C-alpha cells in the first residue's frame, strides 16, 4: 500500500452484474426471493424485466475494492453501508472509496465508501475501516 493520506482515493473496481451469479448466491444464502432468479417475478413486482441483484452481492463488490487496496481479506475490519437503490442484471457498477482518517498508532485507516451506477448514482454509501499494511 502506498503512502496513505486523508483524501487518498482507493483504486476503483468495476463490475458487470450478471444473472448467473445472483442464482448461485440465492442458493448459498437460502434466499427464496424470486426477484433474484425469475424474471417473471420481477415483472410481476413492477420492477421491469431484469433480475435484481442481491444487496449482499453489492456489498461484496465494495469490499472487493477494499481487499484489493489493503492486500488481504483479513485487513477489512469494518464495513457499514446504507442501501440506496437496486442494481439490475447487465448494469455496470463501480466501487470506490476515499480515506477520511488515518490512525497511525493503531494501524487503521477509515474511509468513506460507495458503489455507484455508470451515471454516478450511488446504490450503496457508507464507511469502512481497514488495517494498513505494516
Amino acid at each position: 500500500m502506498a503512502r496513505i493520506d486523508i483524501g487518498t482515493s482507493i483504486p476503483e473496481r468495476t463490475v458487470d452484474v450478471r444473472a448467473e451469479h445472483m442464482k448461485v448466491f440465492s442458493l448459498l444464502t437460502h434466499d427464496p426471493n424470486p426477484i433474484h432468479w425469475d424474471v417473471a417475478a420481477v415483472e410481476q413486482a413492477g420492477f421491469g424485466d431484469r433480475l435484481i441483484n442481491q444487496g449482499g452481492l453489492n456489498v461484496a463488490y465494495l469490499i472487493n475494492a477494499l481487499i484489493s487496496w489493503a492486500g488481504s481479506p483479513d485487513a477489512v475490519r469494518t464495513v457499514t453501508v446504507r442501501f440506496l437503490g437496486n442494481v439490475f442484471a447487465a448494469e455496470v457498477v463501480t466501487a470506490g472509496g476515499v480515506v477520511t482518517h488515518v490512525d497511525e498508532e493503531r494501524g487503521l485507516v477509515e474511509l468513506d465508501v460507495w458503489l455507484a451506477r455508470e451515471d454516478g448514482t450511488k446504490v450503496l454509501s457508507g464507511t469502512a475501516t481497514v488495517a494498513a499494511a505494516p
Partner: protein
Amino acid sequence: MIDVDVLRERLVGRELPGGELRVEGFEAWLGHDAMRADDVRSDVLHPLWLFVGGLRGMGTTINGLIELMEATPEDGVMFGELSIEQSTSMKAGLDYQVRGSITDVARREGRRIGTFDVLTFELETLDATGGVVGTVTSSFVFPRRS
C-alpha cells in the same frame, strides 16, 4: 396496521435460535465466484461470509423474520443497512456457531414509501474456542400500507 409498540414488546431482545455453521471449500469457491472476489482464492473467506454464514446459521430464515414482523415477502421488504465487523477471517472447512438477537424495531415515515418499520438484528459468529470472529448488524425495511 399493527401497533409498533406491540411489535417492540414482542420482538426486541428476542434471541434467535442460532446454530452451527460450516462453509465447505466448494461453497467458498462458488461464493467467491458469485461475489466477483478475484483476490480471494484460498481457504480464507471473504468478509461477506460473516453475513452469508450468519443468515445460514441463525436458526431461522429471512421469511421467518418477515413473519415475526407480521408481514409477507410481497410487502416489498427491503434491505436498509448492513454493518460487518470482522475480528478474524473465517476459514472454509472449520466449524462455527452463530448466535443472534433482535435489537430494535422502529416505525418511521418516508417521503417515498410512507409509513415503514425497521427491524434490526445482530448476528455473532464464534469459532471453536468461543471467540467472536465477527458481528453483523442488519436492518430490514417493511413498508406498511394501511
